[in-house]
């Protein structure tokens, strides 16, 4: 069972102590920050050059604000590690990857076989997001779109 899952090259966890968004914005030593559901990921944008790890917390799986937070960071060009932590289940991780997450530290370990199935199950995607997958509409209309 997987306590930690990384899709980044190398795969090791960046074991940096993540500080709160407020603490991070106020001082310059940290390179890891943790975003809670109610917090504005855009506050991080001026500081992206010194961030190596962003943890996005999902206290309960049904609170989907972290999906927007992740996508906003990637849309702004953040290329460091983006980790989903908390109530993260195998049934959510493929959507999380599409929003830009590339590592996971779930409260409950993940079954590697189910992880594999989750990533390979759907042959296509209907939307363009921040992952490299070409949406179905782009495939229909050739490489000049999307």
């Amino acid at each position, binding site marked *: 069972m997987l306590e930690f899952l990384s899709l980044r090259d190398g795969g090791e966890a960046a074991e940096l102590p993540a500080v709160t968004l407020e603490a991070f914005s106020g001082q310059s030593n940290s390179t890891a920050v943790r975003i809670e559901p109610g917090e504005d990921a855009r506050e991080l944008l001026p500081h992206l050059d010194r961030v190596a790890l962003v943890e996005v917390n999902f206290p309960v799986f049904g609170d*989907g*604000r972290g*999906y*927007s937070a992740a996508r906003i960071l990637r849309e702004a060009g953040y290329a460091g590690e983006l980790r989903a932590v908390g109530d993260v289940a195998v*049934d959510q991780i493929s959507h999380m990857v599409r929003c830009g997450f590339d590592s996971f530290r779930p409260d409950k370990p993940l079954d590697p076989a189910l992880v594999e199935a989750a990533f390979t199950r*759907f042959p296509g995607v209907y*939307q363009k997001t921040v992952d490299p997958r070409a*949406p179905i509409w782009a495939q229909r*209309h050739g490489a000049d779109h999307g």
Partner: protein
Amino acid sequence: MYQYDTYDQAMVDARVAEFRDQTQRRLDGQLSEAQFRPLRLMNGLYLQLHAYMLRVAVPYGTLSSKQMHMLAHIARQYDRDYGHFTTRQNIQYNWIKLADAPDILADLASVEMHAIQTSGNCIRNISSDQFAGVSADEIADPRPLAELLRQWSSFHPEFTYLPRKFKIAVIASQEDRAAMRLHDIGIELVKKDGEIGARVFVGGGMGRTPMVAPEIRAFVPFAEVVSYLEACLRVYNRHGRRDNKYKARIKILVHEMGREEYTRQVEEEFAHMKTLGLDPPLAELERIAAHFAPPPYETGLSDEIDLSDRDFAAWVSTQVKPHKVPGYAIVNISLKPIGGIPGDASSAQMDLMADLAEKYSFDELRVTHAQNIVLAHVKKADLYALWKALEEADLGTANLDLISDIIACPGLDYCSLANARSIPVAQKIAERFSDLGRQKELGELKLKISGCINACGHHHAGNIGILGVDRKGVENYQLLLGGSGAEDVSLGQITGPGFDENGIVDAVEKATNVYLANRTEGERFVDTFRRIGMAPFKEALYA
């Protein structure tokens, strides 16, 4: 109508396989109910009052005969031989076994159907106008955009765990047959400088805090609609309330934030979204639109209808509407026989309607938000034969938009959220007004019943609305007057203290008597109410 290509089919097939695995994991104990519940809901499977209930999506309400036959097959094979058409143009089955659900989804996938996102806090089935493509006053067929949005919203990675459910309707006529402004997002196709685009309303809805959606943007070009909706949804996903499920719908956000501030945030997000290449090329919308090309209508047909059979003439006068092509008509099939269950159809009725669509209406049917069925392209010369066939199957009731054409939610007979039964009230009212002549004398009168405050029966939008409540363990019914879900949208007002089951039937009759006594030439019930106000009705009801 739209047909899946290999991409669409592969997505739906993958979803069936995924749900089969998830169901197996639940049945063998790997998943708890807490873990499984959101997964089954995303596939339309509820645990209801008597059993599991499956809600199957009918995208924008349009069905082929083959698909309707499959719905009949599912009713026979896996349920108790009937289904219930809903106010969101879907169908529900009430007696599903969990172990059968994956097989049902596989059967649906075999005819390009699914139950994806018919529940859960995600973007639900997109609804539309049942007269799409055939009404004379429409700007363009709204269904290609609805299909584009169906695909965009399916498995959307950012918007699957929204604060609450999210309903979108798309229309293209002045006349609103889809309660567009009572949706989380309502889209009306409009023309600007010769270009067709979307006029967008955000933040409508019923439930315990009914609101009519304000306009947020007068025109969004088709080429940017996806970006614009992503912006609308992102502002909602980030800022919609999650502390109280009764305040979590987007209408509350728009109301509390204010329309101007919500609009400002959407515009800001939209400016950003437009740079990301999220919008499909117009060629994609054109590809979809080609599937909705008009069927091969015959030309030179007569518009004459032989009305010498008086029962047939009565049916024609209520159920048949003008079609934009000479010689053709739109036929509304009532699922509201007097004393029946609004929206229910047996498998035999579904099969018959499918056969009749194949024979008389280019193989296509539509489900309406008023829980009826439409055959959109019937030759006037075929109307009599069609009516005869419908009559024999108890589908020939002539009551469209009359007082017995009642919208009713399943209520406490089926629903675990309900506080009171809706269906028996609908049956008693229909029986009280069973005389068709009397109904016609009352004219257009939309009566809508919900069994709880969630308002699945659209009581706020009824000319006469009824809300079932629980008063110390006893069913009680509040009366509302003056609502409308059409282009003259308005929310009904509560008359005063509620009534018991027989009392509410009497109260409805008294309200109609006030109307008859006060109406002027050509006034509908709702017009009279708007003119004379609540006072005369209250006086009659509570004297």
